[in-house]
């Protein structure tokens, strides 16, 4: 591996986004980015409703504790034009012996259907396959979350099946998770496809601080 072995600090820059190490001080900005309840509806972790700054700080602490153990590498998604925080992306279940990793994302719903998700995937997958030389990147989502399934399929990830009632969501519901993966041999095609999507202009791209971070 030529990367850091999935250990902080790692900074990844694209045209619209900077992915930089998640910090506790991001709590207020991320609470604002997560103010739409739809963001939390299907997530396995997190407060399950628009988080207060305190809840977001607790959530960040949990992620950083897992990061400390080497199981996870979390990034704050920062919109380069304004400095606004727009979500979290993270590598989880980092499995060094098997050269495998999972990729998880949430984004401010005001940026759904913008190039931000595609760019974050391009940066994260590029890091995993090219810097860390992983063989497999896994993605999973709640079987009820059709929007996320479409987004994962648009990436070109291959559906692999469903684990029934495999994840307990906030102590009261066992969700069925759908699994997808991209293998190293598939990365060049996935990358080319993402680059083509990102070459299209972003209508309404924020060029300066906007209402999105008010």
């Amino acid at each position, binding site marked *: 591996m030529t990367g850091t072995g999935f250990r902080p600090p790692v900074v990844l820059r694209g045209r619209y986004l900077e992915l930089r190490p998640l910090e506790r001080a991001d709590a207020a900005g991320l609470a604002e980015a997560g103010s739409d309840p739809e963001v939390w509806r299907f997530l396995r972790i997190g407060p399950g409703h628009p988080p207060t700054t305190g809840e977001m700080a607790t959530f960040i602490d949990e992620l950083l504790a897992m990061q400390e153990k080497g199981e996870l590498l979390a990034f704050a998604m920062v919109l380069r034009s304004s400095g606004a925080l727009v979500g979290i992306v993270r590598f989880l279940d980092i499995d060094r*012996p*098997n*050269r*495998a990793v999972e990729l998880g994302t949430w984004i401010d719903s005001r940026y759904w259907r913008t190039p931000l998700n595609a760019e974050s995937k391009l940066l994260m997958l590029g890091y995993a396959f090219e810097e860390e030389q992983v*063989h*497999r990147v*896994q993605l999973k989502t709640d079987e009820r979350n059709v929007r996320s399934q479409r987004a994962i399929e648009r990436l070109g990830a*291959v559906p*692999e*099946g*469903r*684990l*029934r*009632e*495999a*994840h*307990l969501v906030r102590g009261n519901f*066992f969700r069925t998770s759908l*699994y997808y*993966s991209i*293998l190293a041999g598939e990365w060049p095609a996935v990358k080319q496809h993402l680059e083509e999507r990102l070459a299209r202009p972003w209508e309404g791209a924020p060029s300066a601080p906007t209402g999105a971070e008010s």
Partner: protein
Amino acid sequence: MASFEAPLTLTGRWIRLAPLSPDHAAGLREAFRDPEVGRYLLYRPADSLEGMQALISRYLEWQRTGAVLPFTTVLRANDRPIGMTNYLHIDRENRSVEVGGTWLDSTYWRTPVNTEAKYLLFRHAFEVEQVHRVSLQTNIQNERSQKAIARVGATREAVFRDDKLLADGTFRTSVVFGVLVSEWPRVKASLEAQLARPWNPGDPDRGGSPSSRKGAAP
């Protein structure tokens, strides 16, 4: 959910699942003598007593992390170790566990031993530890194991491509199966029916195989 804490012994009609111990190394080494036994194992011991001792140490090390609880399968008729099996990926947060890393002296393939081991492990997981789900997985190339898992009543759920790097540098594709707590009464009844059939563990001093099962190993 309880804790999957060691030491735990699960006793059935034919076998006892005893806490894995370094004392079992010689017996397990003997049980492992058929090379087919280890063919698909992720963690295959070297072909020596030291190799088996190292495998046992490795599992006991994992046991200390709390995510694994390893057992020696002991044939009650003669008190001999005939294999290993484990609770793996003990996931208290999601109330799930995997049963795996199982291998068995090929003399006892296609006998009630595997069925009873699964029965004991599932029953403890669902009824005592109150898990919601038990997973099993195997190499997609291992058809014998997939059939055995299906016979146990687990549902085939996913195929994870190239998810494990093997010692020879190739990646294996894993097939994952699951049993849910809501399915446990049905699975339990089916396992009990399978276990009600007669079986003679044979002459203990000869390692215990009725002659009719000769050739059970593929």
